[in-house]
C-alpha cells in the first residue's frame, strides 16, 4: 500500500450518505464537521447533478473542535429545523468529528431530551468517517439506519413492493425500474429515489427534496409483499427488512447482465401472474441482434473498470459474462465483497494512478469523469459512467440497466471497438508502405 493517493478514485462516505438522503422526501443531511467538508461535497454534487444540493453543516470551528461539547450539533439541528422544516434530518459524521471522538449518538439523545418540541421530526445519526470506506459505504449505511429506525410492522399492503437501489443507478435507471414494476401491477416504494429529486423534474426553487419516498412511505415499507434489491450494495438494507419483518428479498447484483434482466422479468411475471410485455421481449431481441452484429469486433479486446463496487459488478457481469470481453484491470476505491465475484487480470484497491500503472492492453476504460487523466496518458477510450460526471449534459437521465440500458452501453462500446480496429488496420501502413 502506497502512502499517497494520486488521481483519487475514492469518494467519501459522508458524500455517499448525503447522496442517499437526497433521494428521500423532506430529508436534510447535516455534516457534523467543519464547513470545508460540506462545501466540497455540495460543489461536487452540484456539478454532477446540475441541481441545488441541500446539504447542511454544523460548521465546527477550530475552537468548537477543541472544546468538543454538544453546542454546534444542537444549534445546527435547531437552525435546520427552523429554516427548512424537514421531515427527517440525517446527521453524518466526518473525519474531524470521528477523530475527535464526538459522542454524536449521545449528543443526539440529549437533544431529543432537551427539545421535546422537535420530537415529531426524525433525526438519525449515521457514522460515516471519510478515512474509511467509500461513497457506497456511506450510502448504504444511511439506508441501513433508516430501515432500522423507520419502517413499522403491520398488515401486508397488497401489491406494495420495496425497491432498494445501489448508488450507481441514474434517474433513467430508476424510472425504467419503476415502469417495469408498475406494469406488472405492483406499487414500488423506491429507496432512495434520486430520479424524483435530482433529475430536473422539480422546476421551482426549493431548499429541501420535494420528491422521493416520504417518511410515511418508508414507514409502510415494513408491510410490503417483497423487496427487490438492485446492485450488490442494496443487499444489506434489503436483508434488514427481511430480518425485521420477514419480507422476502430478491437480489439482483446486475440489471445490465442479460440473464439477470430475464430473471427480473420472469420473477415479476410469476409474482403477478402477468405475461412479460411485448415491449421488453422486443427490446431483448434488439439487444441480442446488436450483440450478434458487433461481436465480430470483440476478438482480443480488453477493457478496464474503475468505479464504486456495486457499479463495477453490474457492468462487469454484462461485459464479461454476456459479451465475453476480457477484463484487464479492475480498481475498486475501497475493500469490498464484490471482488469475490470478479475475475480480472489485475484487481487493485487503490486510485487512478494504480489503474494507469496496470493497464497495457485495454481499449476502453469505464470510469467517471476523472478517468480522463488515465485515458489521456494511456491513449484509450473512456466510457463515462458513475459519479462524478462533470462534462456531459443529461448523463443522469440516461439508462444503463434493463435491455435498453445494455443496448446503450453496447452501442457505445462496439462503436469504439469498430473504429479502433479500423484505425489499427491502417497502422501497418506506416511500417511497411512505400519501401523506396
Amino acid at each position, binding site marked *: 500500500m502506497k502512502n499517497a493517493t494520486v488521481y483519487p478514485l475514492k469518494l467519501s462516505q459522508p458524500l455517499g450518505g448525503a447522496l442517499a438522503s437526497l433521494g428521500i422526501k423532506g430529508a436534510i443531511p447535516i455534516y457534523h464537521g467543519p464547513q470545508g467538508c460540506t462545501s466540497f461535497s455540495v460543489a461536487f454534487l452540484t456539478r454532477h447533478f446540475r441541481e441545488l444540493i441541500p446539504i447542511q453543516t454544523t460548521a465546527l470551528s477550530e475552537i468548537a473542535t477543541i472544546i468538543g461539547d454538544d453546542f454546534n450539533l444542537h444549534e445546527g439541528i435547531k437552525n435546520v429545523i427552523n429554516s427548512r422544516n424537514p421531515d427527517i434530518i440525517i446527521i453524518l459524521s466526518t473525519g474531524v468529528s470521528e477523530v475527535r471522538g464526538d459522542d454524536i449518538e449521545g449528543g443526539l439523545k440529549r437533544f431529543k431530551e432537551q427539545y421535546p418540541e422537535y420530537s415529531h421530526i426524525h433525526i438519525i445519526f449515521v457514522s460515516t468517517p471519510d478515512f474509511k470506506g467509500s461513497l457506497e459505504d456511506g450510502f448504504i449505511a444511511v439506508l441501513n439506519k433508516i430501515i432500522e429506525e423507520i419502517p413499522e410492522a403491520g398488515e401486508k399492503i397488497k401489491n406494495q413492493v420495496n425497491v432498494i437501489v445501489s448508488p450507481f443507478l441514474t434517474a433513467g435507471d430508476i424510472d425504467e425500474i419503476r415502469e417495469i414494476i408498475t406494469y406488472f401491477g405492483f406499487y414500488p416504494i423506491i429507496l432512495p429515489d434520486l430520479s424524483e429529486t435530482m433529475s430536473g423534474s422539480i422546476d421551482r426553487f426549493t431548499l429541501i427534496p420535494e420528491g422521493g419516498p416520504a417518511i410515511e412511505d418508508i414507514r409502510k415499507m415494513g408491510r410490503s409483499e417483497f423487496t427487490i434489491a438492485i446492485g450488490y450494495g442494496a443487499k444489506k438494507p434489503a436483508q434488514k427488512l427481511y430480518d425485521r419483518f420477514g419480507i422476502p428479498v430478491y437480489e439482483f447484483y446486475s440489471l445490465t447482465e442479460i440473464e439477470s434482466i430475464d430473471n427480473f422479468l420472469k420473477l415479476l411475471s410469476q409474482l403477478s401472474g402477468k405475461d412479460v410485455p411485448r415491449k421488453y421481449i422486443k427490446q431483448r431481441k434488439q439487444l441480442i441482434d446488436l*450483440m450478434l452484429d458487433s461481436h465480430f469486433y470483440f476478438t482480443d479486446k480488453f477493457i478496464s473498470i474503475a468505479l464504486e463496487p456495486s457499479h463495477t459488478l453490474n457492468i462487469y457481469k454484462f461485459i464479461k459474462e454476456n459479451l465475453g470481453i476480457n477484463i484487464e484491470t479492475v480498481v475498486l476505491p475501497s475493500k469490498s465483497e464484490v471482488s469475490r465475484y470478479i475475475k480480472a487480470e489485475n484487481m487493485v484497491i487503490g486510485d487512478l494512478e494504480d489503474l494507469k500503472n496496470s493497464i497495457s492492453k485495454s481499449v476502453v476504460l469505464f470510469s467517471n469523469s476523472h478517468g480522463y487523466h488515465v485515458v489521456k496518458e494511456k491513449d484509450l477510450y473512456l466510457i463515462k459512467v458513475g459519479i462524478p460526471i462533470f462534462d456531459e449534459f443529461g448523463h443522469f437521465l440516461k439508462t444503463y440497466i434493463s435491455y435498453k440500458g445494455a443496448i446503450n452501453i453496447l452501442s457505445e462500446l462496439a462503436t469504439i471497438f469498430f473504429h479502433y480496429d479500423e484505425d489499427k488496420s491502417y497502422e501497418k*501502413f506506416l511500417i511497411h508502405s512505400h*519501401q523506396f
Partner: protein
Amino acid sequence: MIGDDLDSACKKASEEIGIPVIPVHSPGFVGSKNLGNKLAGKSLLDHVIGTGEPPYITPYDINLIGEYNIAGELWQVMPAFKDLGIRILSSISGDSTYREITYAHRSKLNVVVCSKALVSLAEEMKQKYGIPFIEGSFYGIRETSKTLISIAKAFGDKGLLEKTLKYTREREKETRERLKQYIPLLKGKKVFLYTGGVKSWSMVYMLEELGMEVIGTSIRKSTKKDIEKLKHEFEKKQKILLEKGGAKDILRIMKEEKGDILLAGGRNMYTAIKGKYPFLDVNQERVYPYAGYSGIVEMAKHLVNTLYSPVWKYVKDPFMGS
C-alpha cells in the same frame, strides 16, 4: 450509351490540367465486377504501364497483380518479401501510387494473386514485355510457402531458393506454434465457405490447415483452374460446390449439413446472423487481414471469437410460453 468519345475527352482534360487522365471503358450494363477489373487492367496496360522509369532496379523486382491490400493484407505479406530480399516494384493495385505503376514493365516477374480478375493483364504483359508470370495465393501456410518458393524458383537463383526454403520452413514452424492454442477449439468444426475466385479454393486449404471440416464452397467468379484445384482437393469426399445461390440456399445447406459457421462476404453476414450462425467476413469490406503467415493466426482468433462468443447462449427467447 450516348456515344461519348471518352478517349479524346480524357486526352484533352489531361493536357488542360497536366495530370494523366485515363479512360476505362466499363459500361455498367455489360458484365460483372470482374469484367470491370479486367477492363481497368487493360487501361493500365494501354495508358500507364511503360510510361515511367523506376529510380533504380534490383535483380529481384516483382509485381504483385490482383493484390488489393484488403484490410492491409499487402502489408501483412510485405515483411516476407523484405526478409527474402525481393522487392515489390509495383503492386496492382493495393497501396500503390500512379508512379509505381508507370514502371511496372521493369519487373522481372509478375505474381498474380487474384487469378480471375487480372490474369489477363499478366498475360498481356508477358506478350508485350516478355515478363513471365506465376499464379499464387497468400491464404494459408501451405499456399504462402508455395507461392514464395515458386517466386524463388522463377528467378532460377539457387541462393534465393535455398534462402526461401529455409525461411518458409522457419515461418511455418513458428506459425504452427502460434496456432496451437486455437486448433483444438476449431478442430472438426463444420464450415461452409461462400466466396469466389481464388479464395474459393485457397481458403479451403487454409481452413483445413486449421483442422476445420469444409462442408462446401461456392464457385462463382472462379476460373476453370480454380475449380479444378477444388475438385482435386475435394476428391473422394462428398462436398458441395455451389454454383450460384442466395441466402436461402446458404441457410438450407448450413441446416442440412449441420454447419457450425459460415464464411462469406459482408452481405451475407446478416444471412448468418438471422440464421443464428457464427460468421466470418472474408471479402473486401472487412478490417482484419488474413494473408500470409500471420494472417492465418489472425483468422484463427476471429473464428474462435465468433464460434465461442457467449452471445449464442442468449439467442433463444427465454419468455416463450410464459
